[in-house]
């Protein structure tokens, strides 16, 4: 494996500059810059955090403090795809816990939730804000999969294993025309 070079490209730096211009204080660009670093490197290593600190010119300790607070920033090297199943509140009562168990069993997850083939990992999510389509999961900090079933999990894992993109699942506005009087 080639060693990772911890630098931002010109376009990434331009993107960070664009974020810097949105705020009166440069520290505010730390979250967007961490997002850019995580997209690029897959997780936030010490080197990636240092790169962000140097690029915005703020202390490493400050950036580390921010990075370590938030759930969506990965502080350890993780497999490429994350299946985060909501088990909170409504989802928990609508089968979310069982879906998480099923996902973990299917990928052969270890104690950290890392799957056997090292490509997929899974963990429980706190409320994802899609309670009306419970149970739901989120794929690697982006796509939502709604109304999870075992069949949907099977399909999802197959897609991730093949490296296929998970399409955006549009949930139409709720049909209010039916009223049970």
């Amino acid at each position, binding site marked *: 494996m080639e060693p990772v070079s911890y630098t931002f490209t010109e376009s990434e730096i331009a993107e960070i500059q664009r974020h810097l211009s*949105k705020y009166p204080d440069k*520290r*505010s660009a730390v*979250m967007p810059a961490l997002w850019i670093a995580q997209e690029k490197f897959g997780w936030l290593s010490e080197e990636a955090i240092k790169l962000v600190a140097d690029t915005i010119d*703020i202390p490493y300790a400050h950036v580390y403090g921010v990075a370590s607070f938030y759930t969506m920033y990965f502080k350890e090297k993780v497999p490429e795809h994350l299946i985060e199943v909501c088990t909170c509140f409504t989802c928990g*009562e*609508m089968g979310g816990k069982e879906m998480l168990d099923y996902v973990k069993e299917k990928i052969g997850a270890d104690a950290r939730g890392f799957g056997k083939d090292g490509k997929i990992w899974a963990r429980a999510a706190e409320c994802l804000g*899609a309670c009306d*389509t419970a149970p739901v999961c989120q794929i690697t900090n982006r796509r939502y999969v709604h109304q999870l079933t075992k069949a949907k999990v099977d399909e999802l894992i197959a897609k991730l294993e093949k490296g296929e993109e998970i399409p955006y699942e549009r949930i139409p506005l709720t*049909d209010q025309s039916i009223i049970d009087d």
Partner: protein
Amino acid sequence: MDWRTYQKILLPDTPDFHKLDVYEKEGQGYQALRTVLTEEKWSRKAVVDEVKKANIRGRGGAGFNAGLKWSFMPPKQEGVPRYLAVNGDESEPGTCKDRRLFEYNPHTIIEGALIACYAMEMDAAYIYIRGEYADWIDMVQAAVDEAYAKGYAGKNIMGSGQNIDVFVHKGAGAYICGEETSLMESLEGKRPYPRSKPPFPAQVGLWGKPTTINNVETVGHVPHVIRNGADWYLGIGAQTFPGPMLYGISGHVQRPGVYEFPSGMLITDLIYKVAGGIRGGKKLKAVVPGGSSVPILRADMIEGITMDADSLRTVGTFVGTAGMCVLDEDTDIVKFLIRVSQFYDHESCGQCTPCREGTGWFVKMLKRIDSGEGSTRDLDTLLELCDTMEGRTVCALADAAAWPVRNTIIRFREDFEAKIKFKGAYAVA
């Protein structure tokens, strides 16, 4: 107004309403902004007064009159910037309404934010959206870009000489950022520890400057109030909690969804008429009416209760976010409470000891009860623990964690006692 004939305002069924041209054509989009920027009668104060009169109760959970909040902004000082923070962190379990607005009507949020910025003489609005909503953040950003391209945001808006920027900020997974002072810390690029109040954000807010924080849905109501007047708004729904309401109905109902109806609907109408009743012909056990923090209601408490602050107060709960979770008779209420408590344990920022430690103790003690190793004394200890958390921390997360515990134990005590093996084991000592 009968809710059956109600025409949706916030989430209209018009196709492609999220697009600027459709919003303009079909929804009189940006007309309200144009009106306040160009018509003389809409002084800044007149806008604040109209919004205050409409009594838009904050839809983020606190239910505070938005216009009254706006009126707390100090007089403008030359050279001192002022900011609006629009709270789209939507993380309260059970709440799923703002996401629909981001997808189906983002321009009403942007237009509302711009009107708010005009009214309070602000330089910029920051729309803070939780990081999990990555796809929806892109949708809102696309809408903001459209607004800029049309000259509705940025420099010299509609030739009025007003300069107002609108920025979208992406969170990274932290419930606490929905707390207004935590949101500001997060926007400032710090660890989002809530701030002590006072000073209030209107005095010392974002980057130390006067700031107002409103929920995205709340600002989304504003263009409609300007367009149709406060009296029109006051005529919708409950008298003391007026306006349209997005009811996020989830859980064991036939038709879960985000429904838009007037405020003040009967809970029983929402469950049985709107959402089709309990699935599988089961009986209702409990309802959490407005997000996980608000006190739970037993099935026998909801008769005649409507979704507004006054009615809900009579049964000791709140409107919250109107994210309603419906639970059927098979629900293990102890396990349900454990998961709710785990949420607060995970999301406590750790700044204040009662919350950092207390949320963890909740989980441990509830698990002990659930495993059959608990005692009746544990229930009293849990209630005492609530006493040591509520009102004793910088922000309201400790309260939000304690209310479900306190009220679930009080209202479903028999469910807890049924799991306790050694009933009264410590009572004789």
